[in-house]
């Protein structure tokens, strides 16, 4: 009888479990926002910057501030201020500047448990937003110990990126996320009697204090625990360089003095708020300059027969890590001084300072009607080059002699070589300020270049691709005029720039990269589908970005030995060549049609001979053995590691509600005790002991 009853009740229980929708209590308690951007911890030799939460997250009562008026009334509202111990302030991104943040931190002190910024809609973005310093990279500039007046190039910079906050800061940019947040806030925040909204921000960071401490802790491992924990990674990616393969100087040939022209562009930027696998910004700095740089490489490759007539080598160099105190440039100069430039084959004559003729850099291009050419030092600059550049391109203006150089990698090249060669910087920076209003922030996206990213196709002619064509053609023409002394009009197909714009601004997994690589490399791009603009701080090889392989293959292809294309090698003989030649690289590709000579017959594939080198661009501070990381000779930036990022909304019940719940809980416990005693006393069945019946 008892057994039957037990079985029946078990069956009923099962039916009940299957019929009801299984839902975890935690899912009903919290509403998560999955696309929040967050600020992380970064360290240098002496300081830590950025923000972090406690390991279990920071939570507090949500308070929304939309404008200056609300901000002031909130700061004066003592009643609200005293009602809770912890606040998460939800702030309009327009109010995110040092003035507002300082006032908030001073007034709330330890009660400020976190900050959530919101963007109301795409059209509501601030007119200027830059968390970088007003004078970017001033800690390691060429003018560091000089008496030159400092120019605030980034006039709208708040410097908040370089401050350390004791609480987490996150940002929501989606309009639907904002509406959702607002709906709950308005529903529950009307009076003191109803429950209030609470927010929980979780951005715990592993690293702390300084790079020196952190790197030391990375090295500590105890043999008892198997794994070694890494707390932070040095910032840096790859410095990539390529040139026409015909111009290799092999020992015992001597490289003539002043025979190398370096063309520079950077491949990184930074943002205070990031989110993995989402757009990062970096359109005007560095993407536009990078596209111009690649287009120029194509033109140089296209006109290689012309350039054979002279003896200067043009080397294209991309630097990664210069947004944070020029660490890539320091590494490049360090390699050069140690005879490691170019890297790879020992039989190749190294390039030293004395071999450099001049450097040309593309920086921060903003699609304005005007451009500026900065140059230094005045006694070495070649007026002929400047004059012919300005003659060929009316957009370009000359900066008066004596004006300090804007933030650019060239500063470090000059600083490390005591200005022994001239540097020319082409930038959308006039003599007093950077024209990019969103310098080093995530607002620096393709919309600032009048591109609608969702409708951009692989071969759409956009305003920016036309603009780049207008810049790069006269530039290549000037280079040929300057070096070969020939007046020649050069043309680049608009399609090539359109394709580069699409690949770099929208999707690096584009037809171009598949055309210029073999299938196995092309396949590695598949996971990067739709991850546009990966221009952030890199910690290579811990974090992987498609930028480096993209630049390597495209640059290598554009600067290929075009006469070699016609050799009609098979895939196997191409591979054999690669194994036997340690100076050049050989790739069997399908080919990128717009870049091929028109008289070429179409074939199913051909072997490409190119010259390509790359080297890790972390600061020399991490390479020199026993270097004291607290010294400031070289930059020592590291980025912390993190595991969980989350932003959740929940309800904070009223005090009465909490007390009632507590009392009911206590009563239930007591009652169940009595109930059990009662059952034990009156029933004979015991599940623990064998039944007596």
């Amino acid at each position, binding site marked *: 009888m008892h057994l039957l009853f037990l079985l029946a009740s078990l069956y009923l229980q099962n039916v009940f479990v299957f019929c009801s929708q299984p839902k975890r209590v935690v899912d009903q308690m919290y509403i998560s926002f999955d696309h929040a951007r967050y600020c992380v911890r970064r360290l240098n030799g002496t300081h830590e910057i950025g923000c972090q939460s406690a390991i279990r997250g920071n939570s507090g009562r949500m308070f929304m501030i939309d404008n200056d008026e609300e901000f002031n009334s909130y700061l004066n509202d003592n009643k609200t201020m005293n009602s809770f111990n912890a606040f998460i302030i939800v702030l309009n991104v327009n109010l995110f500047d040092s003035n507002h943040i300082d006032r908030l931190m001073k007034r709330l002190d330890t009660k400020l448990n976190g900050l959530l910024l919101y963007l109301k809609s795409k059209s509501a973005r601030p007119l200027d937003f830059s968390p970088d310093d007003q004078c970017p990279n001033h800690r390691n500039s060429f003018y560091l110990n000089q008496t030159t007046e400092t120019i605030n190039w980034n006039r709208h910079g708040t410097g908040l990126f370089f401050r350390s906050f004791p609480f987490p800061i996150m940002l929501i940019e989606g309009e639907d996320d904002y509406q959702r947040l607002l709906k709950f806030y308005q529903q529950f925040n009307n009076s003191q009697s109803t429950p209030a909204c609470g927010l929980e921000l979780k951005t715990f960071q*592993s690293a*702390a204090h300084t790079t020196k401490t952190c790197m*030391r802790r990375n090295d500590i491992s105890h043999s008892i625990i198997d794994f070694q924990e890494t707390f932070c990674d040095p910032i840096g990616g790859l410095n990539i360089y390529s040139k026409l393969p015909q111009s290799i100087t092999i020992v015992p040939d001597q490289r003539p003095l002043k025979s190398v022209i370096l063309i520079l562009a950077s491949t990184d930027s930074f943002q205070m708020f990031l989110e993995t696998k989402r757009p990062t910004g970096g359109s005007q700095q560095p993407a536009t300059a990078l596209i111009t740089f690649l287009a120029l490489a194509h033109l140089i490759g296209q006109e290689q027969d012309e350039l054979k007539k002279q003896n200067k080598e043009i080397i294209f160099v991309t630097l990664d890590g210069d947004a944070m105190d020029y660490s890539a440039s320091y590494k490049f100069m360090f390699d050069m001084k140690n005879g490691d430039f170019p890297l790879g084959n020992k039989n190749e004559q190294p390039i030293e300072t004395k071999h450099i003729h001049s450097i040309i850099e593309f920086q921060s291009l903003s699609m304005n009607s005007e451009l500026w050419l900065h140059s230094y030092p005045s006694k070495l600059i070649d007026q002929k080059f400047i004059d012919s550049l300005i003659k060929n391109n009316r957009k370009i203006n000359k900066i008066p002699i004596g004006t300090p150089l804007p933030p650019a990698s060239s500063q470090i090249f000059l600083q490390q070589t005591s200005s022994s060669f001239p540097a020319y910087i082409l930038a959308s920076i006039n003599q007093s300020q950077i024209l990019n209003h969103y310098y080093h922030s995530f607002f620096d996206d393709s919309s600032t270049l009048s591109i609608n990213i969702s409708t951009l196709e692989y071969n759409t002619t956009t305003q920016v691709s036309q603009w780049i064509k207008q810049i790069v053609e006269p530039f290549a023409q000037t280079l040929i005029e300057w070096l070969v002394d020939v007046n020649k009009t050069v043309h680049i197909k608009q399609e090539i720039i359109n394709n580069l714009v699409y690949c770099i601004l929208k999707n690096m997994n584009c037809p171009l990269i598949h055309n210029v690589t073999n299938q196995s490399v092309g396949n590695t791009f598949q996971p990067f589908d739709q991850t546009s603009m990966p221009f952030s701080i890199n910690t290579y090889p811990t974090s992987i970005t498609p930028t480096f392989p993209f630049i390597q293959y495209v640059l290598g292809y554009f600067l290929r030995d075009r006469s070699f294309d016609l050799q009609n090698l098979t895939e196997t003989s191409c591979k054999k060549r690669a194994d036997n030649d340690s100076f050049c690289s050989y790739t069997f590709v399908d080919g990128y049609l717009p870049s091929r000579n028109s008289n070429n017959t179409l074939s199913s594939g051909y072997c490409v001979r190119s010259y390509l080198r790359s080297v890790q661009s972390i600061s020399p501070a991490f390479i020199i053995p026993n270097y004291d990381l607290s010294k400031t000779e070289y930059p020592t930036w590291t980025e912390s590691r993190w595991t969980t990022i989350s932003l959740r909304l929940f309800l904070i019940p009223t005090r009465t509600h909490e007390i009632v719940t507590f009392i009911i809980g206590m009563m239930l416990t007591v009652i169940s005790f009595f109930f059990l005693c009662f059952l034990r006393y009156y029933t004979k069945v015991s599940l623990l002991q064998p039944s007596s019946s």
Partner: protein
Amino acid sequence: MVSLARKSPEERLTICRKYYLGGFAFLPLLWLINFIWFFRQAFKVEPYPQQAEIRKYVIRSAIGTVIWCIIIIAWNIIFQQLRTRMGPVGDYLTFVVPRGYY
């Protein structure tokens, strides 16, 4: 643990001495055990010839334990207070390195 009552007085003395001497090998717990285990034999039972010596070892074990306790507690306090100020030494002495904090 063997019941001491069943051992002869000589055997009890030998065990007690072994524990006492063993404690000098940086094993304060051995002294603590010695003290607790032989406490009754040293002070509470009917006197017997070896008791005086057992008592000596038990008292010395107790003193050793106290000294060790003081050392361990003092080091604990010093380490917790001065870990960050010790710089690299502090990190190398730490077994579980704190994440996210100095």
